């Protein structure tokens, strides 16, 4: 009896203290919590543009790499705090659709978008925004200094001359890394693709956490060649880095940055407004500032410093296959390459 009494006193004291401390920290009702994998430097611009037309809504970004966002959402499941998932790979959204987390919704004006960019169901569970496309970033200054030829194809990257000079994103954490691996498997079939990755692995300096880092490292010459995506290379070139963005001859993988509503979202109304805004022509114009291929037909203008023929080299990407096989591919990849110091398995 006494212990109970004491326990009560203790916990009520603790409770009062904690409650006092919590007060200032509860998220405001008007906040829209957006889970995203879009490059962080773009987010402020998007938020400003949206909030200009919807001043009563404030966006709270939760940003991480594609792989991590995907894992986070899968783990959080229906308890997720996200109101909307925005700018995540379509492959990932397919997984989340299977997991029953997504709320189908047809944003106002979605019919104007290219059909290929939108989920086939009606109403669609996810809507594509723009395509991000694999590319190779090459530091021309360092390549020259180290006597490295500019690689033209994926196959070139396995040449011994590049040993230790290549960085690539880890497909388990990075969406770009995954679309590379997925595209190689789709283009060449399992056997040839894994053989290629075995050879590539010998030349890799480090695997990075995010998909943009290889290109940034290439830009600084830390590693002269980075397997990354086109936007990053072009952006760095624009900033003055000696980066050449190469679209390999065999074809390039790509994925759609897409959005989807979340079931049981606390702020569903705001999420819908954000979805409606995301399919407008004006917003697609903003997408185009960085990406060459966007969902709204007729908006896309060529982006400076992009490889000229990039969109032609985009492979026929089977998102469904990629989503279904994602877990298996990542497990195999991890087994083969996760620890560089491990003896390689044949």
């Amino acid at each position: 009896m006494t212990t109970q009494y004491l326990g009560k006193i203790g916990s009520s004291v603790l409770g009062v203290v904690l409650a006092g401390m919590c007060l200032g920290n509860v998220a405001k009702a008007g906040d829209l919590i957006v889970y995203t994998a879009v490059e962080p430097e773009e987010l402020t611009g998007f938020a400003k543009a949206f909030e200009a037309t919807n001043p009563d809504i404030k966006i709270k970004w939760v940003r991480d790499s594609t792989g991590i966002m995907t894992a986070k959402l899968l783990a959080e499941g229906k308890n997720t705090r996200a109101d909307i998932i925005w700018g995540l790979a379509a492959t990932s959204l397919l997984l989340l659709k299977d997991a029953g987390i997504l709320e189908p919704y047809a944003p106002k004006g979605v019919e104007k978008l290219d059909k290929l960019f939108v989920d086939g169901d009606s109403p669609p569970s996810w809507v594509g925004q723009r395509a991000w496309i694999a590319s190779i970033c090459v530091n021309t200054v360092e390549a020259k200094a180290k006597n490295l030829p500019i690689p033209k194809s994926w196959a070139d990257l396995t040449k011994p001359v590049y040993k230790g000079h290549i960085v690539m994103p880890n497909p388990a954490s990075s969406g770009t890394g995954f679309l590379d691996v997925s595209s190689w498997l789709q283009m060449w079939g399992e056997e040839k693709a894994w053989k290629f990755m075995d050879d590539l692995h010998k030349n890799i300096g480090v695997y990075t956490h995010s998909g943009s880092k290889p290109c940034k490292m290439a830009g600084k010459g830390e590693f002269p060649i980075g397997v990354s995506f086109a936007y990053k290379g072009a952006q760095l070139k624009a900033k003055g880095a000696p980066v050449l963005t190469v679209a390999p001859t065999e074809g390039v993988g790509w994925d759609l940055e897409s959005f989807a509503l979340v079931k049981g979202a606390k702020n569903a109304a705001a999420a819908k407004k954000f979805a409606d805004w995301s399919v407008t022509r004006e917003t697609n114009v903003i997408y185009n500032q960085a990406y060459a291929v966007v969902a709204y037909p007729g908006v896309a203008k060529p982006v400076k410093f992009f490889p000229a023929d990039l969109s032609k080299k985009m492979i026929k990407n089977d998102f469904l296959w990629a989503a279904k096989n994602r877990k298996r591919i990542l497990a195999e990849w991890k087994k083969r390459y996760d620890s560089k110091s491990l003896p390689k398995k044949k």
Partner: protein
Amino acid sequence: MTALDQPRSLIPGPLSTLQRIRNLGTESWIMLAGIVSLCAALLALLVMPLYSLLSKAVEDDKGAFVGLANFQEYFSSAGLVQSIGNSLTIAGLTMVIACVLAFIFAYGITRSCMPFKRTFRALATIPILAPSLLPAISLIYLLGNQGMIKGLLFGETIYGPIGIMIGMIFYIFPHVLMIMVTALSTTDARLYEAAEVLGAGPVRIFFTVTIPGAIYGIVSAAVIAFTLTITDFGVPKVIGGQYNVLATDIYKQVIGQQNFSMGAVVGLVLLLPAMFSFVIDRHVKKKQVALLSARAVPYHPKPHKVRDRALLAFCVLMSLFLIGILGTAAFASLVTFWPYDLSLTLAHYDFDAVDPNGWSSFYNSLKMASFTAVVGVVVIFLGAYFVEKGRGFGRLRSGFHMLAMLPMAVPGLVLGLAYIFFFSRPENPLSVMYSTMTILVLCTIVHFYTVSHLTMLTALKQIDKEFESVSASLKVPFYKTMLRVHVPICLPTISEVMMYLFVNAMTTVSAVVFIYSPDTKLAAISVLNMDDVGDTAEASAMAMIIVLTSVTAKLLHGLIMKSFTARHSAWRQRTG
């Protein structure tokens, strides 16, 4: 009626617990409530989360009990087991190198007549002010493939064990040095006189007097070095490349793959060496106390040209290393585009351009660190006061003391992980704190509790233990005396503990990396994220902001303490 006439048979013999509790005075109730709340707080914020971690390790991802299956899976995966070997190798080597370097440095400070001893000592505290990510980032600029002095590596890569070790040596140096300096200062000069009179040469004296005299300190320093290295996550995350260690494994399992059960398993594996080190350290500390004699005569080194010059040269080199690392980060944050455009710019400090939570993460850190310092010091002072000065409730008090020692043995990553498991459960009423600033503050206080608690305890131990008795006899409640007497006397220690909490809260990554939310992202985590996406210059800039904040806080603290001591502490000087 005399006392003897009273019916004593009604109150026979010893009192039951219940009777004792009924007999408690108001003050005892206040004290009891205080101790019980503190115990409850540490149970809820430390023991129960750790228990959740433990139970998570024996569950599958759906929450069903699977016994040791996760452990089996862990030990059958070659990559993960390899990490154990890697972690032990790195921690072992770093421990040896750091201890040797710190010993020589400390030897120079305590046992030589070289100049600038105070300066060296101050310089050696630089790493404390920075997050552990900073040395790793700097090393990439110095020794990476485009590094300024990469020739020193003779073709080896910095991305891997070499980088981790150099980064760790920078990061743990001040901690190891502090213990070494203490160990070498507390020697008895008479031992040296005796050895010299007996005709022992300097080498023999070194091995028969110096080393044995400092041995407990050396062991203690080694243990700290080992634990800090094996549990740190910032350095291997940034520069480890494909060289996996336990700390990065936890991060990968939990953040990268959201595989919480496996994360819990790795967490428990990481808990073992930390616990082991903790036990050794406690054991050694006990022995060390017995070794010190109150009548020891302090050692005063005599000038010795060769030795002094050699030690001076060493200390200069070591200081250059420390300053060099910090300087590189500062430089990296100011260069427009390394290594092609070396013009200077402040553009990288415009964090909002690369991260929507850029500057706000810094303000969050400031807020978190201030709350941690203020709330932490109050709780820690009360806890130490109850343990040292409390009356009655002996078992509760010693129980609380044991709880307070526990955080030392729990690595930050493990604590953070345990917090996810415990606080994210919707059925836990405390889950209202999840993803708030509150949980970051509480987690950080718990993370750094032990050292603060011990420091406070030492200060309180020096206060006459009869103050409470005097106060009670004068019918002044204990809390009044605590506020009027103990707090003013402990003020230097209180402010030191606040400083310690503030700086650590500014720089820590390991525990909070699992429990921050978009609203409560911290500066040190921004450093991590910015480095992750390749914005290294911005990461350096944010790390520098953290360093500058720590330095500013330290300087302010020094100034305030100085003026305060001048005005309010006349009693500290002996005037008569």
